[in-house]
């Protein structure tokens, strides 16, 4: 396959990094999965331009990225509406869009959600580190030498011209998740819900929580009514493994939703966001409000099958590459 230079970074924006599905199987070495936070938008972006669904994309946070195309290339922008423009004119999101050599793509600022995903037809040519191209920003490896994009970076892709025929392919409007300022997250109680009082659990399930500014890819910090733990249990527990979506409650009673940059923790978890709602966590930003709703395991699996059904339906409906 021919590797072709496809983009030059004109401005990196607030925080743009290379992410794929994530790095799995290394948790026992303390290595977090990283990966695209809104995995649904990420997978759809890849499918739109004819990539394997787990190919590396750009994860763009809030605003400011500007790229220049170095050749004719197919791209797709999904996820948050950051007012993506091509040559300063609005660009259709959730669509395979063809850029000519010298065309620019820029992200002017937030209208809804938090993170956009930009897939390039032919992917991003980078070596895998421990099985993934995802950037581990805190330990500085993967992606572009473990760092966010910077001005002057050149991105290359494999055989981008093979992907031009996806141009115009569009993801069904009805299947695009809403990105409002209020998020209702479905949770399953546990693993340590037995160590909170009934009042504590009621508070958690019945109160709105505000997203605090010191949230990042490691966790979403929330502020709101204090969640009461049982008086006989201590503030921390013996450290154990954690997954993204689990909601830990430190001594101050203010919940933190764990995301993808950590693998162990020493606080009690009252509940865990269901897999089908994890993509929404990538679109939560400081100032938003979240509420939690308890569901059953059956509800969780039904929601997951429904989400996978949308991906599968789209996959089967679009033309595949030779």
């Amino acid at each position, binding site marked *: 396959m021919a590797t072709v230079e496809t983009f030059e970074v004109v401005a990196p924006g607030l925080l743009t990094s290379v992410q794929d599905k994530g790095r799995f199987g290394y948790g*026992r070495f303390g*290595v977090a999965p990283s990966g695209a936070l809104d995995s649904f938008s990420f997978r759809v972006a890849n499918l739109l331009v004819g990539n394997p669904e787990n190919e590396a994309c750009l994860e763009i946070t809030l605003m400011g990225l500007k790229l220049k195309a170095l050749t004719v290339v197919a791209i797709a922008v999904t996820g948050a509406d950051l007012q993506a423009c091509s040559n300063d004119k609005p660009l259709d999101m959730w669509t395979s869009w063809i850029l000519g050599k010298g065309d620019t793509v820029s992200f002017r600022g937030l209208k809804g959600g938090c993170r956009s995903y930009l897939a390039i037809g032919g992917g991003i040519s980078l070596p895998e580190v421990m099985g993934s191209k995802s950037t581990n920003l*805190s330990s500085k490896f993967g992606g572009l030498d473990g760092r966010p994009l910077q001005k002057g970076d050149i991105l290359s892709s494999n055989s981008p011209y093979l992907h031009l025929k996806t141009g115009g392919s569009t993801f069904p409007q009805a299947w695009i998740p809403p990105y409002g300022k209020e998020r209702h997250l479905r949770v399953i109680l546990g693993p340590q819900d037995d160590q909170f009082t009934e009042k504590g659990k009621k508070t958690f399930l019945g109160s709105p929580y505000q997203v605090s500014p010191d949230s990042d890819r490691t966790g979403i910090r929330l502020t709101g009514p204090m969640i009461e733990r049982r008086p006989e249990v201590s503030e921390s527990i013996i450290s154990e*493994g954690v997954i993204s979506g689990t909601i830990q409650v430190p001594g101050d009673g203010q919940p933190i939703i764990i995301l993808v940059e950590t693998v162990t923790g020493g606080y009690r978890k009252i509940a865990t*966001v269901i897999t089908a709602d994890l993509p929404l966590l990538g679109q939560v930003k400081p100032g938003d409000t979240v509420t939690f709703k308890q569901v059953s395991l059956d509800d969780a*699996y039904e929601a997951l099958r429904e989400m996978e059904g949308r991906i599968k339906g789209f996959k089967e409906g679009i033309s595949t590459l030779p």
Partner: protein
Amino acid sequence: MFYQKLLYRSMGDRSVIVELGDQISPEINRRVRQFAIALMEDPAEGLVEIIPTYRSLLIIYDPLKLNVVRLKNRIEDLQKQIEGIQIPEPKTVEIPVVYGGEYGPDLEWVARYHKISPEEVIQLHTGTTYQVYMIGFTPGHPYIAELPKALITPRRETPRTNVPHGSVAIAKNQTVIYPVESPGGLHILGRTPLKLFDPFQSPPTLLEMADWVRFLPIEEEEFKQWPR
């Protein structure tokens, strides 16, 4: 103490924590490792990841491929024969450390706290063979225990925001090594020139769960000239 029966704590719809006991002990930790190795040697279809820690395992699975009831049955089968499962002997690793001064800014404080000399703190810290109980927090970050009783120290009242990589620190009955610069609430006794994490090596970490660790005092000159 070991639980009579394994305790399962579901974490959401795609993972379960299997708890083996109620405390930090070498026996429970060894059993955790036996389970982890046995499960990884013959992974069930849909098993994504196993994270062994002090007294429990986190098992992450793909719920569309692996049914949690089947997973629990597999663990219960293992539990019946766990005593007989042979696991490789852990390795012993010597960690060179330059103690005190700018490398160990809390050495003097710890000595004063225990009313002993800094030299005695170093002797105590280097005079014990420790066990790695788990790797976590950041890549390659080992949780090592148990400190000699005479070195058991409460955590710092104010955590540091930037602990240099390689720092060797203590709190409660544990000692740790920081692989990357990170915040930390432990007392820093010294620093090692060894690299604890390298994403391009296999395995990527110097230490693994159950390894034996000894600390060796070195001079500042040796630290500076250590091949890196």
